[in-house]
């Protein structure tokens, strides 16, 4: 799973975050020279899937309000979800980096922002894909045609 999310979050190439951060997120331990550290790609990936799904369920099933049926409100939820994922990814990356400063790895805050952007883009794609599938959309009432129709 760590490998899968590693591939996903680096789909865009190296510009989002550098090799050192990538190694760190994969769980590389500079002290032992192996991947015995926390699998942070998997952690962020799982959070992304569950949180995006939860936000979609909140929109389609829990709130399920006629007030929110218009596409603009769906876009607001999409934006909110993306921003939330950006911060989660950024915080996980920076917290880890702070903890291993002593391990002589070369990670900047720009790397963390880049990683946040990568996760944000994937969360958006997941949000859109999940919104286009019939379910959970069609289990709800008021927004079951959003974003396809208003």
């Amino acid at each position: 799973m760590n490998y899968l999310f590693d591939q996903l979050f680096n789909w865009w190439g190296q510009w989002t975050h550098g090799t050192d951060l990538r190694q760190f997120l994969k769980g590389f331990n500079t002290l032992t020279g192996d991947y015995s550290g926390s699998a942070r790609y998997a952690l962020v990936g799982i959070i992304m899937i569950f949180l995006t799904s939860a936000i979609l369920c909140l929109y389609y099933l829990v709130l399920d309000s006629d007030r929110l049926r218009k596409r603009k409100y769906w876009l607001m939820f999409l934006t909110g979800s993306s921003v939330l994922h950006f911060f989660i990814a950024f915080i996980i990356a920076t917290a880890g980096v702070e903890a291993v400063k002593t391990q002589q790895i070369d990670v900047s805050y720009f790397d963390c922002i880049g990683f946040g952007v990568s996760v944000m883009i994937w969360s958006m794609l997941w949000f859109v894909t999940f919104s286009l599938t019939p379910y959970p959309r069609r289990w709800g009432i008021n927004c079951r045609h959003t974003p396809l129709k208003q």
Partner: protein
Amino acid sequence: MARLYVFAIGGTGARVMKSLTMLLASGMKTQGAEGRDYEIVPILIDPHKANADLHRCGMMLNLYQKIKKPLSPETGFFHTRLKTLKEITDSADQSDNVFAFDLNDVNSTSFRDYIGYTAMGDTNKQFMDFLFSGKTIDKDKNPISLLDIDMDIGFVGNPNVGSVVLNRIRSSETLKDFASNYTAEDRVFIISSIFGGTGAAGFPIILKNIRDAIEITNLANKGNLENARIGAVTVMPYFNIEPDENSPVNAAQFIAKTKAALNYYSRNVNPAVNVMYYIADKTDKPYKNDAGSGGQKNDAHLVELIAATALFDFLKMPDSELVNAAGKPVSPVCKEFGVKSDVPAIAFQHLGDGMMEQIATPLTRFMLFRKYMREELPKSIGNTVWCNEKPEIGKSFLSTPFMQSHLQDFFNLYDDWLRELGQNLRGFAPFQNDALLDSVVTGIKPRQKSFFNRKTVDYHLFNTYLSTQAIKGGFKNEESKLLSIFYAASHTMLMEHFDYFNKLKT
């Protein structure tokens, strides 16, 4: 399917029929005690063709039919089928397919010519002069002898003239068509007033012709007719008219005429009717005194609405309580109506409990439907779930004849009817047209919000209920879908958010 033949006689008959049409449109069901669903065959009887009330009633019945035509049987609103006598008699020949009983041969005929006065001998002429003495007016309101009355403006408050002319029903095609279709399961309901001309004359004649069917030649199903289950509502004075010394219609005579007629009814009519309903009210508000060719166009009145509900009460009575033997009811019943509170402007709460249970929910459902169509449909069309579920209701649907003319025209008549009911004395104003959705019913508020129920009764909530219904699917076409979901959604909203309607459970 069993049928209920409704004879609506005169101007009051037409106005009661109009209220009945509104109740039927709101989804009140004509279901009998035996579980029979009755189809209604209205027969409007009025020689006064220019009568505005007759015209409005006929228009409303035609619109009802047009709206009902594309609908599947279970649509809630416009549930009951209305048929003309022509439709059930000869489905191939639909010419002259109208609800009005054809009294064409009295058109442009004076009463003198109708009875062949000039060909009578002197003795008969003197007898006629004695029976039909007095004055009346012609179409242009000029004073004339009663014998010279133009019958195409009605009988102008002269039941003695009406009783002669309307006797031609006995030999009419209408009576033959009615008789040939009448089965033992069917019922008859007669609507008339007792204080005018046409209704007071027509009711006993129709009743007599049905009960004495055995004596009429060339009539089918005589046995069924003789023992027909007959209900009738007779409206006693409930409005006044402006005094006009040139008019033959004089409100001061209403009570005297009613007393005389009641005396006659008690001996000859009440014993021949299975269930007789009487209703009256204070005669406060004077209507315009127009007995001429313009005809009376009276505002709708609560009494007419209440009178219309008598029909539903009659249908609910089991066959066992409406037994006839040799053309006579075994146990005829007379019923009257009273309100709970004697106030000038009646709302649902002021009606008796039984009446409130009967009409409050259907009328409110229809009101919500109408209000949504007027205020919210332009915003919702094409972008709400209930519109977009199949069959889709898009903007093009708004320009169909069903929406643009039939339903819209019916709503216009409904608006007029409600407005007139509210303005009249005694007024019936159960709705506040321009209020928000949660306060549209006069004096009735939605349930208080709680921690578990924080929903506001507004169009968003209405849309949610509409969409819930639309998702269920299974609609024959857009028209059926529209009426079905609005019926079910408005019902759910009333039951879930208004304790008042929840307690009524209708």
